[in-house]
C-alpha cells in the first residue's frame, strides 16, 4: 500500500499530514497552551496586571497556600457545588423523562423536538438579561405565574440571598434540559427492537423491561450528557454574570465569577492565576475520574 501511494504525484502523504495539522497546532499552542503556561508562571508571583512599573517577585507557593487556607474560597466552592449538583440532578431527571416520552413515536415528533431544543441554542448572557425581567418582583411574569398558583405576595428571586441560588438553577435547567434530552433520545433509539421482543417472549413485565433493558442502555448516554454539563457548569460564567452577577452579596458567586472579580476588578493577577490553575486541575481531575467510571459502567 505504502509503495503504491508513493507513485502518485505531488507532495508525500507525510508532508501533507504535517502541513495540514501544523496551523491548528500552532494556533492552539499560541492562544491556549502558551497562556496557560503563562498563567501557571504568574501564579507563583505577586504580579498585578494594572501596576505595570511594579517589581514582580517570585513568591513560591504563597498564593496557593493563601487560597486553600481561605474560608471564603470554600464558600465559593460550595456555591458552585450546589449549582452543579442541582442542575445535573434536575436535568438528568427531566431530560430522561422527556426523552422517554418522545421515544413513543407520535405525529409531529421531530417538530416538537426542534422547538424544545431552542432555549439551549441562545446566548447565555442574553438569556440572563431577559430572565432578570421575568424575575422582576414588581412586574415579572415568573412572579405573577407563581403567585397565580399560590399567593406568596411580593418575592424577589434575584434579590433574596436564599432564593438567588435557586434562580440560577431554574434558568440553567430551563436552558439545558434539552441537551440531556437529545442525548438520551439517541440512546433510546439505539436499542434494538429484538431485545424487547425477546423479553416479551419471556413474559417480562413492562417495568422489568424498563429496568433491565431501557435503563442500562440509556445510562452511558445519560452519563456522557452529564459529563458535558458538569464541566460546563463548573466553569459557568456568562449566564450568572448577567442574571445575578454573583449577588446578592456573594450568594451566587460561583468560582468563575469570583475569579473574574479577583482578576479583572481587583487585578490580583498572580493570586487569581493560582486560583485559575486550581480550578483547571479540579475540572481535569474530576473529568478523568468520571470518564474512567463511565467506561467501567459501559463495559458491564
Amino acid at each position, binding site marked *: 500500500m505504502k509503495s503504491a501511494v508513493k507513485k502518485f504525484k505531488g507532495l508525500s502523504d507525510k508532508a501533507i499530514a504535517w*502541513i*495540514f495539522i501544523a496551523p491548528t497546532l500552532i494556533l492552539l499552542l499560541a*492562544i*491556549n497552551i502558551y497562556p496557560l503556561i503563562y498563567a501557571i508562571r504568574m501564579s507563583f508571583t505577586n504580579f498585578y496586571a494594572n501596576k505595570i512599573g511594579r517589581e514582580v517577585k517570585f513568591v513560591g507557593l504563597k498564593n496557593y497556600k493563601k487560597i486553600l487556607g481561605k474560608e471564603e474560597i470554600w464558600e465559593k466552592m460550595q456555591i458552585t457545588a450546589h449549582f452543579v449538583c442541582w442542575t445535573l440532578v434536575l436535568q438528568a431527571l427531566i431530560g430522561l423523562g422527556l426523552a422517554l416520552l418522545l421515544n413513543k413515536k407520535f405525529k409531529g415528533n421531530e417538530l416538537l423536538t*426542534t422547538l424544545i431544543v431552542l432555549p439551549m441554542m*441562545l446566548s447565555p448572557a*442574553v438569556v440572563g*438579561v431577559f430572565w432578570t425581567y421575568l424575575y422582576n418582583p414588581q412586574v415579572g411574569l415568573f412572579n405573577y405565574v407563581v403567585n397565580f398558583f399560590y399567593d406568596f405576595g411580593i418575592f424577589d428571586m434575584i434579590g433574596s440571598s436564599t432564593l438567588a441560588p435557586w434562580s440560577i438553577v431554574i434558568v440553567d435547567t430551563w436552558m439545558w434540559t434539552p441537551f440531556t434530552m437529545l442525548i438520551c433520545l439517541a440512546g433510546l433509539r439505539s436499542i434494538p427492537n429484538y431485545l424487547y421482543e425477546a423479553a416479551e417472549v419471556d413474559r417480562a413485565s413492562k417495568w422489568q423491561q424498563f429496568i433491565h433493558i431501557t435503563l442500562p442502555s440509556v445510562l452511558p448516554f445519560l452519563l*456522557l450528557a452529564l459529563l458535558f454539563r458538569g464541566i460546563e457548569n463548573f466553569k459557568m460564567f456568562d449566564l450568572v454574570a448577567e442574571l445575578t452577577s454573583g449577588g446578592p452579596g456573594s450568594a451566587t458567586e460561583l468560582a468563575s465569577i469570583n475569579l473574574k472579580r479577583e482578576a479583572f476588578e481587583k487585578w490580583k493577577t498572580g493570586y487569581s492565576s493560582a486560583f485559575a*490553575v486550581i480550578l483547571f486541575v479540579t475540572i481535569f481531575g474530576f473529568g478523568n475520574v468520571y470518564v474512567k467510571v463511565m467506561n467501567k459502567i459501559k463495559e458491564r
Partner: protein
Amino acid sequence: MDTSRSPLEATGFSRKLAATIIIVYMVVTLIPITWMVATSFKSVDSAISYPPEVFFEPSLEGYVNLFTNRSRQPKDYLDSLPPPDTWYEELVRSREMVITGPSKFLPRYSNSLIIGFGATFFSVFLGSLAAYALSRFKVPLKDDLLFFILSTRMFPPIAVAVPIFIMYRKLGLGDTHVGMIILYTVVNLSLSVWLLKGFMDEIPREYEEAAMIDGYSRMQAFFKVVLPQATTGIAATAIFCMIFSWNEYAFAVLLTQFNAQTAPPFIPTIIGEGGLDWPAIGAGTTLFLIPVMIFTVVLRKHLLRGITFGAVRK
C-alpha cells in the same frame, strides 16, 4: 415514520398521553422566549404594568429606542421645532423627547457578524485540513493529539483570559476585530476538528484513491473530491462555529470595549430612563436571537452530533 406496528409499540392511549405532556412542556418552555419577543412590541408603560399584559396595543417604541439615542426636552422647545418628518420621530416626540443620533446597536451587531463570520471561516478551513490529515494519515500520537485538541475546551475562559489580555495588550490586538477573530477561531478549532474528522471518516477512501489513480495529486484529490463530498458536514460545522461565536460573552466582555465589542455584552447595557428599557432590550434580544433560531431549524438533523463533539452520531 414506519407504519408497520409491532406488538411492542406504544398503545394509542399512552402515545396520546406522551404527546400531550410533550406539547405542554414545549408551550411552557417557550413562554420566556415568546414573552421577550412580545415585550419588544410593547410600549415602555405597558412593559412595566402589573399584572403583566398578555393583550396589548402593539408599538414599535422598543425598536425605535434600540436604534436611537434620545434626550428629553421641555414642551416649549418641542413646540418650536418644525413638525417631525418620519413616523419614528413622531413617536419619540410624543414621549416629549428628540432623537439625538443613532445608538451603538448597529455597530455592535455588525461586529458580531464580522467576527462571527471571520472566525467561522478560519476555524472551518483550518479544521478541515487538520481533520483530513487525522482521518487519513498515520500521525504519531494521534489519539493523544485528538485528546489534547479536545482538552483545550476544558479551560475556564476566565483562566486564560488574563494572560491573553496581557498578550493582546503587548501585541496591540486588544479590542480589535482581528484579535477577536483569532481568539474565536482557536476556541472553535477543537469543535471543528472533532466534528469534521467524524464526517470525513464516513467518506470512503476509495473515492480519493480512484481520483489519484486518474492522475490527481493528493492535494487535488482533497480539494476536488473530498471537500465537495463533505459539504453537508462542513456546513453543519460552520453553523455550530457561527452560533458559538455569536453567543460568546466571557471573552467579549473582558477583552473588548469600544471598537470590537459584540452584541452580547452590549444588550444588557441598554438603559432607558429610570432603569432598564425593557421593550428596547426585548427588541435587541429578538433581533439577536432570530438568526440562531433559523440556524437551529436548519441544523436539526446534526444537532446531536454538534453538541457532543461527534461523540454521539445517532
